[in-house]
């Protein structure tokens, strides 16, 4: 609750700041201050289980420690993005504080989609996330690719929103209890009515679209490629994992009872996502585009939590969110500072910027799932949850084989950084000392969480 109110409030503050602050660099500090406030308020709510704001919401929002922990992860990831790339928002265009304001509004949507208890609030949360993103992805006005990304995202997003709304309507119509509450959906007699099935499938399709799972992933590479890098970084991490949380909470609470009936659909989507994401990523030359496909591939791994739908899976999705966000934001942060976005641009980086190269290698290890990084714990929990749920061991085997495929493209960057000589033309990183320190701290955090995942898991059970 704290996070929902404060992010919305701070979004308004940022908008006014745009009108009154003349300085271009000040909004960044204001945004960082705001994100710290949101994080602390959320942490207090997590520890004390009481909110600053005592509003009667008629049970439409549920703030248990799982939801709040996820919000903490999302806010922390945004904080990391701000301190790493806050300055790069200034290069997108002139409306710096608006960009920050929009991100705060998105965070409000993230908090809603992590805590909703009714179908309507879920819709609201997803839409509050999507609409500012349409603007942000097109915020580089003079860049044709950015415009294309925004339009594509808007059209496809609107389409999927329509399907989602339709699905909600069907579910509401089929629900004998006549309620929007996700825990109060009466499935009626078996077999389930066709109307209900249609509603479920529509929701499944639209949510798969939001998390860019195949075969509904086609927008993702172009949008991620076209949007300004810092926006891509935010979109591919915080937004994606928020959509996953919404996905899991919806299907767990509303349709968990008939899990076995839609499990096979999830299996198909999971395998298709892993296949398309991993195989296509291998062939990319642009690192930005490769990370777009890698984010699809990682979504395939996160889908395993929907397949298992047990406690381990839910715990795993939090760890996965943190692991994936930390590493991807870190990699994008390095990429933003580079001039050449191709893999060759990384050539010989270890010689010139050893600290950044080693940190980037740790990010890549984490994404691949090498032990001692949080990425390993994330993948481990996913595999554990599916094997524990039973029955789909062959999906696990396929998933780990694709995890091995992912080494092909992640390690290409490592090979470029450490084993190849630098290109003759100077590809210097526009990175200051503080940037380097934060990148190294992020890498240390990845290792620390990999060794002591209790630091994160403990929050869920607090």
């Amino acid at each position, binding site marked *: 609750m704290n996070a929902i109110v404060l992010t919305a409030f701070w979004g308004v503050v940022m908008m006014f700041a745009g009108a009154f602050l003349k300085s271009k660099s000040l909004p960044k500090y204001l945004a960082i201050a705001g994100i710290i406030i949101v994080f602390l308020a959320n942490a207090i709510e997590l520890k004390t289980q009481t909110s600053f704001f005592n509003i009667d919401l008629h049970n439409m929002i549920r703030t248990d420690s799982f939801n709040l922990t996820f919000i903490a992860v999302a806010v922390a990831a945004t904080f990391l993005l701000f301190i790493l790339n806050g300055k790069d928002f200034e290069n997108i265009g002139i409306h710096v504080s608006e960009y920050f304001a929009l991100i705060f509004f998105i965070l409000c949507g993230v908090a809603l989609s992590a805590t909703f208890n009714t179908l309507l609030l879920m819709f609201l949360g997803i839409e509050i996330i999507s609409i500012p993103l349409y603007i942000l992805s097109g915020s580089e006005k003079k860049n044709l690719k950015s415009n294309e990304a925004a339009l594509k995202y808007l059209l496809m997003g609107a389409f999927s929103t329509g399907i989602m709304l339709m699905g909600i309507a069907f579910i509401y119509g089929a629900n004998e209890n006549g309620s929007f509450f996700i825990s109060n959906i009466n499935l009626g007699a078996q077999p389930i009515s066709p109307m209900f099935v249609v509603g479920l499938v529509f929701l499944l399709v639209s949510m798969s679209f939001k998390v860019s799972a195949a075969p509904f992933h086609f927008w993702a590479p172009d949008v991620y490629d076209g949007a300004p890098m810092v926006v891509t970084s935010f979109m591919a991490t915080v937004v994606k994992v928020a959509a996953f949380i919404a996905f899991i909470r919806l299907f767990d609470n509303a349709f968990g009872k008939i899990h076995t009936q839609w499990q096979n659909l999830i299996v198909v989507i999971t395998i298709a996502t892993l296949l398309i994401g991993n195989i296509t990523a291998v062939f990319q030359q642009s690192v930005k585009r490769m990370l777009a496909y890698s984010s699809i591939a990682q979504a395939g791994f996160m889908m395993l939590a929907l397949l298992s739908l047990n406690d381990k899976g839910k715990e795993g999705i939090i760890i996965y969110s943190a692991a994936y966000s930390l590493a991807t934001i870190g990699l994008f942060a390095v990429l933003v500072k580079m001039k050449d976005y191709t893999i060759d641009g990384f050539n010989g980086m270890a010689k010139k910027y050893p600290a950044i190269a080693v940190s980037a290698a740790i990010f890549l290890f984490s994404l691949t799932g090498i032990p001692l990084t949080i990425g390993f714990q994330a993948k481990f929990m996913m595999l554990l949850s599916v094997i524990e749920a039973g029955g789909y061991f062959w999906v696990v085997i396929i998933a780990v084989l694709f995890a*091995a495929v992912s080494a092909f493209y992640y390690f290409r960057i490592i090979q470029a950084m450490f*084993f190849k000589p630098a290109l003759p033309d100077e590809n210097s990183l526009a990175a200051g000392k503080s940037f380097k320190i934060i990148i190294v701290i992020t890498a240390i955090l990845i290792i620390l969480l990999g060794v002591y995942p209790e630091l994160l898991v403990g929050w869920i059970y607090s």
Partner: protein
Amino acid sequence: MLGTYFTFPELLLWIPLIAGIVAFFIKNEKAVKAWSLIASLIILAVSVVGLCYSDSSKYLSYNQVSYYWLKYLGNSFHLGLDGTGHLLSFLTALAYPLIFLYSYNRKWQNANNYFGLMLLTQAGIMGVFSAMDALLFYFFWELALIPAYFLCSIWGGKQKIATTFKFFVYTFTGSLLMLTGIIYIYLHTGPRIFEDTTQAAHNFGMLAFQHANLSGAEQGWLFWLFFAAFAVKIPVWPLHTWQPDTYDQTETSVVMVLSGLMVKMGLFGVMRWMLPVVPEGVSQYGNVAIILAVIGIIYASCVAMVQDNLKKLVAYSSIAHLGLMTAALFSQTELGVQGVIVQMFNHGVNVIGFWIVVDILIKKSGVKYISELGGVAIKAPALTIMMIIIGLANIGLPLTNGFVGEFLMYGGLFQYNYVFAAISILAIILSAVYVLGMIRKVFYGNVSEAASKMTDLTTYEKIALGVVVIIIFITGVYPQPIIELTKNATALLVK
């Protein structure tokens, strides 16, 4: 003090780890060489002292230690050295000073990174040999690979990046398959209750794995998941294809770590995490593993005979030897398993000696092809003597250490199935053909152009090879200490 504050497995893990991390920051080449050599000698000393405390009555206080780690998963940081662990950690501790010593005069690019990564690899290997929790074992198994990956990719031939990546992908895929197997078994273990009465739903401990509640059919396919990881590492035919390329392209001192120590990780994995954990799976499919191993022996020996590239010759010879060890191990006879343990140590020593000779040849003459060498004995008589002794040990001549292990292994194989034994015994004849053929062509005959550049051994090289030769004779004549050390370990592995 010892045993109260720290134990041997801890020392063997932390000393190389810390020494390795420190080495990264020593920019002076001379200093980092001296630092690493001293560190590796200290590790050797610790390991030798550890051998004196190795009998089972002292096991609990000196050779095992357990900390809480990832408690909520039922895992702990449990290290322990049994007889086999002692032997292999001693081999690891012994190999590093030899490797550092023989190449002491060499100039290294980025010496600090080289020595740092080498010591980190050593820490990873030590961890594999002492991990008593399955998850911990998996951690070390992967972590030993990462510094090795960097070592192989930075120092070596022109194709090193591609070949090393092949090696990495093979190993990584195998490891991930093993991970799924580990998770599956883990979920079939009972709850773990820690000393502070906290409880976890399942247990990663080694004993819990040995008593996991698994049906015969489950063990059957779990066998293959584990075998995938270990067979890549050993390597067993047909998963060996990464090895000759990687050995050819990688810097030879790194290859010594790979072929002397890291392949033993595979055999050790079979011993600790496969034979006792999925016994029914082994009895179903152990035969298939032996057949693959025997095919590998003959195949690799034949390829080695026609090999012109010195490094690939040693690589294929190594595949043949490891194939024999794999076959003997899966035979699960007392003789065979005992032979494998002895041979693991002896092969480690021999192959490191073999690589040292090959590396000296290649570095001094500038060529790696047998056809371009000849008459080296005239230029480098000491090197020739060393090579002949090591070569004879490699063939398994009596009185050398190679004989002891091979004799036991063939004995075991004969007890198991005389057809397999008869076929694989061809390996001895074939190894005599390619080793002696190589010695004849390289060391005798007319002095070739490349060979005329040869000089004889330097002091450091003499010391390193001298130690190898002394060990070859000592363990060849008196292998009893090794057998005594490891006799308890065989009990679990024999059917």
